[in-house]
């Protein structure tokens, strides 16, 4: 099966994206990449992946369209409220002991997760001492994150999540309506550095107290997961915190021994003393 013509074409396509544009999807979890490439082929109306590859090599505008399929931009504010409740109740007391904080939101998508942290840190009085790094490989996602505008029909869900995450204020304190959506206060983004950074190809860039990388590693195969977890280990201060998605775990990684469980059911880990 892995030698079917379609499979060969898909591999060549990923190779072409890598050689031409330096985005490396070759070790993403295959089944899901295949599904999304087939969707792209169908919706962009190519007969074959080879035809798609030719278009992609010669026409730069194809890249962002195909990236839209290859990266999954599904997110929400305070996604899995119990995770953010654990950050608030268990992690924040530790963070308070530092005079200054660096927080990395890796794979920040359209900024829903970043805004959740910014609000939580403001509520807990930590915002002024914190620098947030919000990174992603998708230029569209980074742009959306930096704008902080979400469609109004998502706000009820965000509000409910915020409350369930132990919110001490009302979410409506942080946005006004306009531009056809909820525009989140730009002061929430004043202490944020947005940056293009790939967990697959880029390196450590600062020393962090908390890294939140949720629902990104599930798209990687184990080799890439290991690389990313190694990067997190090397980026964290001693006893720094790592938060993963609800269904992600470090259990199968070579780096499992570098972290200890901090809030096990919420997938919050702590960097062990080296």
């Amino acid at each position: 099966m892995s030698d079917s013509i379609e499979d060969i074409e898909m591999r060549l396509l990923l190779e072409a994206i890598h050689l031409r544009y330096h985005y490396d999807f070759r070790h993403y979890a295959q089944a899901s990449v295949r599904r999304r490439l087939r969707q792209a082929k169908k919706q962009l109306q190519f007969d074959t992946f080879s035809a798609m590859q030719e278009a992609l090599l010669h026409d730069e505008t194809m890249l962002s369209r195909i990236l839209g399929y290859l990266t999954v931009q599904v997110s929400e504010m305070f996604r899995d409220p119990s995770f953010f409740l654990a950050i608030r109740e268990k992690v924040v007391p530790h963070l308070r002991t530092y005079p200054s904080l660096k927080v990395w939101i890796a794979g920040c998508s359209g900024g829903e997760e970043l805004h959740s942290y910014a609000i939580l840190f403001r509520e807990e009085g930590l915002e002024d001492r914190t620098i947030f790094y919000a990174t992603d490989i998708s230029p569209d996602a980074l742009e959306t994150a930096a704008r902080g505008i979400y469609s109004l029909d998502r706000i009820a869900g965000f509000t409910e999540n915020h409350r369930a995450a132990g919110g001490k204020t009302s979410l409506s304190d942080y946005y006004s309506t306009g531009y056809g959506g909820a525009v989140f206060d730009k002061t929430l983004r004043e202490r944020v550095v947005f940056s293009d950074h790939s967990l697959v190809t880029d390196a450590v860039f600062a020393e962090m107290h908390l890294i939140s990388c949720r629902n990104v590693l599930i798209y990687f195969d184990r080799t890439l997961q290991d690389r990313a977890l190694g990067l997190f280990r090397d980026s964290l201060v001693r006893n720094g915190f790592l938060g993963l998605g609800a269904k992600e775990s470090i259990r199968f990684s070579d780096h499992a021994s570098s972290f200890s469980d901090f809030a096990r059911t919420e997938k919050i880990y702590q960097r062990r003393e080296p």
Partner: protein
Amino acid sequence: MNDAPERAIVIGASAGAIEALSVILPALPADFPAPILIVVHIPSDRSNFLSPLFAAKCQMSVREVEDKEPAERGIVYFAPSNYHLLVEEGGTLALSADEPVQHSRPSIDVLFESAAEAYGAGLVGVVLTGANEDGSSGAQAIASAHGTVIVEDPAGAYAETMPRAAIRKCPEAHVMALDAIAPFLLRELGRS
């Protein structure tokens, strides 16, 4: 992973799922020679009650999937609510937070289609009761990959829409009453 099972069972169920699965799963022995991967549509606020519920009634071990774990014989795996479950080549289980497919996450089609590619003729797909049409494209994919498809007889099903849709798209399916499914699986797997 040379030791990865060459055969697997995938099951999809929606409305009436718990009752239907309660007829099939407890009838299978602890050493059932294949992994069983299951997608059930459940409201996301009632997540994660399925594996404890069935662990208590089954001889096979039952658990919720963790991302990138190998699918092993004798284990029943449930997809967590709000995530799609896919099978990678070589039998590794992978989760994804992609958009719902036809309003469902997890989606039966997504599981069946990826499992059909991973297991080919070694796969048995089972479509049970449900009030939507999820699983019918997946059943078709399993049949095209020379796997076996079983559909619960719509006449006796709690909700007939899903089995009917599957039979329509996959006419080669074996249609049978709920209580005939576990014996069929045992015979089918005994042969290999």
